[in-house]
């Protein structure tokens, strides 16, 4: 682009020579620089996705080549499977928790940290810490926290003198316990998004509100919040994408149990496709997940983020 812009005052001859030498050095670069990324990406991202669509119509254990064509049967089995329905609901719950708990919490903390308060950097550091830990480690730590025999929840129960609950073993409670871990691990990241959003707000707007005599809460509700719209949408977008990938954290906590009450799309794919080496069925789950991801990414961007 910029290479084609001829600076004024250069003679035509020079610019022609330049263009020719540029054109000559263009192809070697393209031939050397593009193929590694292109090859790797095609072979290990695009082709497998295409193959998933193909395998999803077969009943196949992964050895030899797929021969047993079953049509749409794998897809029918998925949508008839109550564990998959539960996984869909759980993915929805994660997004809901993000909207109702994580976004308000992150925004609240971000406004406090962005105000002139001593130790803001320290708190910011602490709140972000869970985000850099591996999901597996976070899941394992919280498995200990929730443990009814040895964990912190047990300790608190003993302290106030009640029987310790086993939340992760209770199919009605386990998913909510997991939502707690998800918020614990990710609120710091969302808080950083809001801190960045708050910084981008033009301070003269807030000063104008000050002069007009707005209270702190009025300023927040009428000036800050509307200006943070794009950040809220971004934050929710990350929560949606994250919920569709949630796997690492579930495995150490519950592995999808008890009786499938904490499955997500990816744990479902793993538990029903990978561990049983049901390549056809697992691929079909992958295709469904892919369609959901792409649809959400496109429609969310079209509908909610089109002005951002």
């Amino acid at each position, binding site marked *: 682009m910029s290479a084609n812009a001829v600076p004024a005052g250069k003679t035509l001859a020079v610019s022609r020579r330049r263009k020719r030498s540029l054109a000559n050095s263009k192809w070697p*670069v393209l031939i050397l620089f593009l193929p590694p990324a292109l090859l790797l990406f095609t072979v290990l991202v695009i082709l497998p996705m295409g193959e998933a669509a193909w*395998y999803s119509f077969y009943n196949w254990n992964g050895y030899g080549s797929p021969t047993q064509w079953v049509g749409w049967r794998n897809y029918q089995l998925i949508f008839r499977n109550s564990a998959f329905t539960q996984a869909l609901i759980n993915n929805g719950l994660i997004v809901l928790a993000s909207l109702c708990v994580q976004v308000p919490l992150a925004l609240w903390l971000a406004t406090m940290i962005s105000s002139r308060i001593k130790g803001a950097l320290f708190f910011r550091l602490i709140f972000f810490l869970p985000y850099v830990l591996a999901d597996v480690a976070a899941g394992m730590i919280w498995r200990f*926290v929730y443990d009814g025999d040895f964990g912190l929840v047990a300790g608190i129960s003993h302290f106030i003198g009640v029987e310790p609950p086993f939340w992760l073993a209770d199919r009605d409670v386990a998913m909510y316990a997991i939502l707690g871990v998800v918020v614990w691990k990710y609120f710091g990241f969302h808080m950083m998004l809001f801190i*960045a959003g708050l910084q981008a707000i033009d301070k003269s707007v807030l*000063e104008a509100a000050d002069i007009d005599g707005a209270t702190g809460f009025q300023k927040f509700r009428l000036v800050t919040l509307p200006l943070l719209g794009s*950040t809220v949408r971004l934050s929710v977008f990350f929560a949606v994408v994250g919920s*569709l*990938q949630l796997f690492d954290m579930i495995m150490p906590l519950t592995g999808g149990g008890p009786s499938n009450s904490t499955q997500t799309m990816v744990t479902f794919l793993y538990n029903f496709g*990978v561990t049983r080496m049901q390549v056809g069925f697992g691929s079909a789950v*992958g295709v469904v997940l892919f369609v959901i991801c792409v649809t959400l990414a496109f429609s969310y961007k079209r509908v909610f983020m089109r002005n951002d």
Partner: protein
Amino acid sequence: MTEISTAQPIDAASAPTSGQRIRAGTQVYMYVSLVIVAAIVVVPLISTALGGFKTLGELRGNPFGLPTEWQWSNYTDIIISKRYWLQMSNSLIIALLTVFLTLTFGAMAAFCFAHIRFFGANYLVNYFLIGLMFPAATAILPLYIRIRDLGLVDTYWGVVLPQVAFGMGMSIMLFRNYFRNLPSELFDAAFVDGCGYMRFFWHITLPLSRPIIATVGIISFVGSWNSYIVPLIMLNSESRYPWPLGIMIYRGEFSTEWQLVLAFITLTILPTIIAFFLAQKHIIAGLTAGAVKS
């Protein structure tokens, strides 16, 4: 893809949103709230570390407090064990290879997209952007079969190459945006002086790109260091397991002895925590701004 103008370097302390001083009452309320949230974050981590110093019996009666008798052997046994160091070095090798290839291949491709006009360039960029839209888990079974057919199952490369491939979209996006924003006078000047693309890439673009190299490097390092599902599928031998898989195996082996599991978790997340406190500014900025810009 989701570019917003807010992704500037984030520095909370130096940029108050309001010029007013905060009243004392509000300040107390703020500190109390912040300390409570900080406690919720930190207490599980500290109890995990302390739990590793206890006996199982004490863990049952006293999960919060300091151990009455510090069981150093829980930790030292792990530190002198081969498996801990093996898992750490497995993770490190996989992460370093992943970072190196993600940076090299991504920067090279992005350079073409940023500076060279060629037929189909825009289509190719969009092609790579598809990779940002779905996680590796989506295609994990065909991916496994492909890696198996390439003879890479149970090797480091079997983990590294898929990770690099799925990181390509992010890497190319971030590099391309950065390269495009370098001052265009540089190109004009260099090309008039007869500098070709290749030399330009090595001698001008790369030296100017340290910040974005750091960002992409941090994102792919943290991603690979913490990754679980790809190694879980691709590796069979425990001798090649990175530490997140190691934790799961360890927990399976010592399921009745939480104190050992806690010591093991503490030791495995220790490098992350140390690195985070040493390079917090870069890590926070890299992970946040990077996520927003791609």
